[in-house]
């Protein structure tokens, strides 16, 4: 779940056009890049897809942290492939965003200045190898939970991106779970690492869905536009229902003393995460905010000469071609 708390933008469009647009969405039609869309729809999508893209890019860092220390050659390959996958999905989503009339550089600028956010989860540190399992299992699991319904989102390029992204991510999620399995069945030290990783990542994973938005006007508008398909609480409940039995299968304990099956709702009752902590993380006070954003800014600044070099060469080449003609 890479897009959190997306505010909708209001539109000053012609009411008749708006109504026709809404009717198209209600009929289940896809909106394509060159078609008319309300300004609010366009801006909200940029915010959501952009935040999703930023999350993929920043999300390389917590896992990248363990690539050089992966314990076997095969694990190293799996992790490398996963990080490549994230960067590739980031690229794909930025391209989808560009169809809405914004450039990738503009989006980067907004990420680096703090004007745009990325998912709160990536502001938590990866302290042991088991965290690679926890991220694959819980974080990707939560992301997929959110992205699967988005395959039906109203904006064509976004929906089609989600189809392919979901397939690739579920492949990586299985591999994350297999790391957890190895650890949970391993030596006492490995099992302790696995439990510790679950303890640290459980509540931040629940936070990925964002606070309850049942009453939110933004949510209502976004759901009408089919930019958002389910409420945050629905997705969180689904995630808990699916994840708890997996934890049991691993022989690990979910760190929630109030967790219990509720027959009436056919789902688990569980404790809410600490939403004060969530808002602090969004404000920049999470354990790794400065490091994550700092790393991305540094990469961008250090790479300036590189990007300038490439574009200078491209200009020279264009001039040479013109001269040759």
């Amino acid at each position, binding site marked *: 779940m890479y897009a959190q708390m997306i505010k909708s933008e209001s539109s000053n469009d012609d009411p008749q056009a708006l109504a026709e647009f809404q009717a198209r969405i209600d009929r289940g039609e896809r909106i394509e890049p060159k078609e008319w869309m309300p300004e609010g729809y366009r801006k909200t999508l940029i915010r959501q897809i952009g935040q999703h893209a930023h999350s993929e890019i920043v999300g390389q860092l917590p896992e990248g942290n363990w690539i050089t220390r992966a314990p076997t050659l095969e694990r190293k*390959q799996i992790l490398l492939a996963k990080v490549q*996958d994230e960067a590739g999905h980031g*690229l*794909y989503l930025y391209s989808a965003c*560009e169809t809405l009339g914004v450039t990738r550089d503009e989006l980067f600028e907004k990420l680096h200045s703090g004007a745009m956010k990325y998912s709160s989860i990536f502001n938590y540190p990866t302290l042991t190898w088991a965290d690679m399992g926890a991220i694959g299992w819980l974080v990707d699991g939560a992301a997929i939970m959110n992205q699967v319904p988005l395959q039906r989102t109203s904006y064509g390029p976004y929906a089609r991106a989600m189809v392919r992204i979901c*397939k*690739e991510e579920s*492949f990586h999620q299985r591999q994350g779970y297999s790391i957890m399995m190895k650890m949970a069945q391993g030596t006492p030290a490995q099992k302790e690492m696995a439990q510790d990783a679950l303890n640290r990542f459980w509540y931040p994973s629940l936070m990925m869905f964002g606070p309850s938005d049942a009453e939110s006007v933004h949510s209502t508008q976004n759901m009408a536009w089919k930019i958002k398909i389910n409420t945050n609480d629905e997705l969180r409940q689904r995630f808990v229902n699916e994840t708890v039995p997996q934890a049991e299968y691993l022989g690990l304990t979910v760190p929630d003393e109030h967790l219990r099956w509720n027959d009436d709702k056919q789902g688990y009752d569980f404790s809410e995460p600490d939403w004060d902590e969530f808002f602090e993380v969004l404000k920049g006070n999470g354990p790794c905010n400065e490091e994550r954003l700092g790393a991305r800014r540094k990469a961008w600044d250090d790479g300036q000469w590189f990007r300038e070099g490439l574009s200078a060469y491209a200009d020279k080449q264009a001039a040479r*071609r013109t001269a040759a003609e």
Partner: protein
Amino acid sequence: MVTASTDQIWEWLAEVPDPEIPVVSVTELGIIRDVRWDDDTLRVAVTPTYSGCPATAVIDMMVEDKLREKGIEKLALERRLSPPWTTDWITDSARDKLRAYGIAPPVNGTASDGRMSRAARLAGSNLTIECPRCGSTHTDKVSQFGSTPCKAAYVCRDCLEPFDYFKCH
């Protein structure tokens, strides 16, 4: 004990999807190289697509699961490196499925040979890749590599669709 014909085995293997691009099967991708009986043991030779592709181990597991499910008891999977896998082995049916899934299929005969010529660079020549969505050839490469080793990222300048191109390998 099941002793199916090798034709039957091939049909069963055609039900095993690629783990990352599940619209195509492992047989359509050309990564199952051989199926044969060696007394009562079934031997299946699998070739990796890319040397570092982590899907390889998963594919082995899926092939094994499928054949066990069909009742094969004695099974030996073999890794075959030679001849190295090439996208030329991808079947025509798979190419159509890739296109429908939003991935432009590989253009045969355009694999890197390590000798990208100066002339090619000077001409800034780019492979013409058809947009899998609108069929336009007015497309640009965004990145030589995509989310997986087998793909490059492209964008269509007509319908604006970002899409993946399955690189020739």
